[in-house]
């Protein structure tokens, strides 16, 4: 089944179709959302929960203009922005990468990579929101610059500039990370 047929099957009550969609995108979406939320895994899980249930509830009216993956990533982005807006209104900041179940290529590499990965995530969380968005959507959400530009309603050149600045900022931050300096040549 293609994306549109899957959505149609979900609208028809086909749980197997939903499970297929869920499993195909869940880790990507959790990664994207957690990064967008500055490492707040609990909030990201809530967003994921809400986005997927919304797919069930609204499958009959969903009209895909691109891929289902892009649709879901966009939905997570919108929800994450909403969470961030509310967070700005309050004083609390729940962001923390300490509790993240970071996946590595193999279990044996988890320990040796953990600090490095956390340093990367922390640096990402330190970026301006719009820069973090473009890096996360492109690298982890699998969206093209054109798709991100359309999503933001701005030019592709602006998006690419943000991306370049974001990468430069990240590399600069990581270069000053003492843990990484010891580990990397």
């Amino acid at each position, binding site marked *: *089944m293609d994306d549109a*047929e899957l959505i*149609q*099957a*979900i609208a*028809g*009550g*086909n*749980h*197997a179709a*939903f*499970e297929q969609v*869920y*499993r195909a995108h*869940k*880790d990507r979406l*959790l*990664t994207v959302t*957690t*990064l967008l939320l500055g490492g707040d*895994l609990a909030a*990201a*899980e*809530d967003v*994921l*929960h*809400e986005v*997927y*249930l*919304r797919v*069930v*509830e*609204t499958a009959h*009216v969903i009209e895909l203009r691109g891929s289902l993956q892009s649709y879901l990533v966009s939905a997570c982005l*919108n*929800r994450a922005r*909403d*969470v961030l807006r*509310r967070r700005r209104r309050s004083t609390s900041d729940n962001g923390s990468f300490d509790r*993240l*179940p*970071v*996946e*590595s*290529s*193999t*279990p*044996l590499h988890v320990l040796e990579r953990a600090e490095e*990965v956390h340093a*990367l*995530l922390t640096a*990402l969380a330190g970026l301006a929101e719009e820069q973090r968005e473009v*890096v996360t959507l492109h*690298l*982890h959400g699998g969206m093209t610059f054109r798709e991100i530009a359309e999503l933001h309603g701005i030019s592709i050149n602006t998006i690419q500039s943000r991306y370049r600045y974001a*990468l430069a900022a*990240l*590399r600069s931050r990581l270069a000053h990370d003492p843990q990484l300096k010891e580990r990397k040549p």
Partner: protein
Amino acid sequence: MTIEHEFEQQLQNVRIDTSAELDDRILGDAQKRQAARLAGIRFPFAFNGRFRNGVAVGAAVAVIIGVFLVWAFDPNDSWAQVASAVKLRPWIQITGEPEVGQIVEQWFSIDKMVMATRSKPAGYAELHDLRNHSHAWYEPGEKILYVRTDDPGSVGQEFDFMKALLESLFRGDERLDFEHKELVEQPKQERRMVEAGGRSWIEYTITFPDDRVDTATIRIRVDPDTMLPRSLIAESKPGYAGAPARMEARIDYPEQGPADIYELGVPREAKVVDLSSNGNALTIIKLARQSAAEFDDHSGIGVITEGDAPWYRGTPFRIWRKGAKWRMDYGIADPLVGEPEPPAAEVDRHAWWKARCERLWFLPSEVSDGKHVWSNIALAEGSEQARYQHPIIWPHVDWPPPNWESRKSSDNWPAETGPLTFGYPPQLARQGRTVEKNVQEHPAEGPQGCVLLTIRDAGLPPEKILSGTEKFWIDPNRGCITVKYQAATDFFRINSDLKRSPKSIWYPARVQNVDLRALDGKDRTGLTLWFYLEFDAELPDELFTPADRIILSQMPSHLEN
């Protein structure tokens, strides 16, 4: 590779996986929501554009409305007095106007066990008759009335979730019981007496958590004399959904309700599409399931060969099954072992493959303890394409340790591994509101002695119905084993060399796939699976748990150390 590219890849490698708990929560909640939607619990919000982003509100309203159904079907002593009074009135009617000029009504019958919905002027109508397992709905856009008389009663599933809330409401509790928080998150609550319309009401105000994007409030007004709910007001606050939205619903207890779907305004001349599965179809599926469930515990070797390749030139895999537990490992040839020499014509094929397996290394693929399934997603770099070549040849030392991805085991169908999954395909359990299953007892084509079971989704657009249709030629004289399977028009599977287990249950020893579609640019025509089963092997429980490393139980002797 540039430094920038390397850095991008470094970032890209960061991945955060969902936990098994989150998977269970989302999949479980989604299933309940789907069941609720199938059950027709779509009171006003399904028709309301302004509430389209107000899913939380819609779900909550569905919960509260669903309460009445529980009450109607399963009253208990704690509110027997009230229930008794209402039982004198055969119908409960809820009427709302989610948008100006758009009316949605629902009826519930206590004695008749009927639930009905109508929207005006949109023209959608739906009626469930739980006692008779019938379900009918009219799609005004298509001008088609869909009916089925084999409704599994999914409407009833939501009722259990509502019961505690209902009891709480009728007891007049200070706090309504929302113990089923998997359906609706714990809300804030307030109970107070209010004056409205010249009289007093008990008013419950239920506010869903502030951190939800669709913050919503629902107020229920209860008549303190009868303890009957009389009105319901749902509001969404400004925020994500844009402007605030509000809907009032009136709750009545009339003497009359709809006798059938036509009384809901469905045109008598509407085209009727009967989606009911015929009785034979359900019996055959039940028998096939029984065969798969009762199949003997076993171990065995399966072999994948391609095209015209001989039986001995392929990739073996080992299978084990013990009740609901199962496991599958792939046998991969080290380049130093290479491909086999052609055996003698009269050789015992099973014995030959057992000997061949002793020279291969085995990669765990999937393991299940009956409750969870672990899939090994670790791949050696560059090995993706190797998986499509048979035999698979790869140095065992290059393959990374297993990386297990877990999921909850499905209990939909008891045939997870070959050859059972081909002889008794899980697709037989396919469900859906518009999925129909029918049997032709004397099909014009197909293997001799077989009936033809067709499963199709009539809800798909006409141009896609064919591609979503599956056909199963099933032999009712051999435990309802599937002998031939066809998906759409371009994929066939032929099960042959049928054998019997010690319990006399049939299974295919040869499964030939004919896939006319191109997959990854490769012609997959002619993939064949061969099965050699044993029914007396020991099956220790340790086999059915994910191991930390590749099991080299059959290490080629010259590669040891």
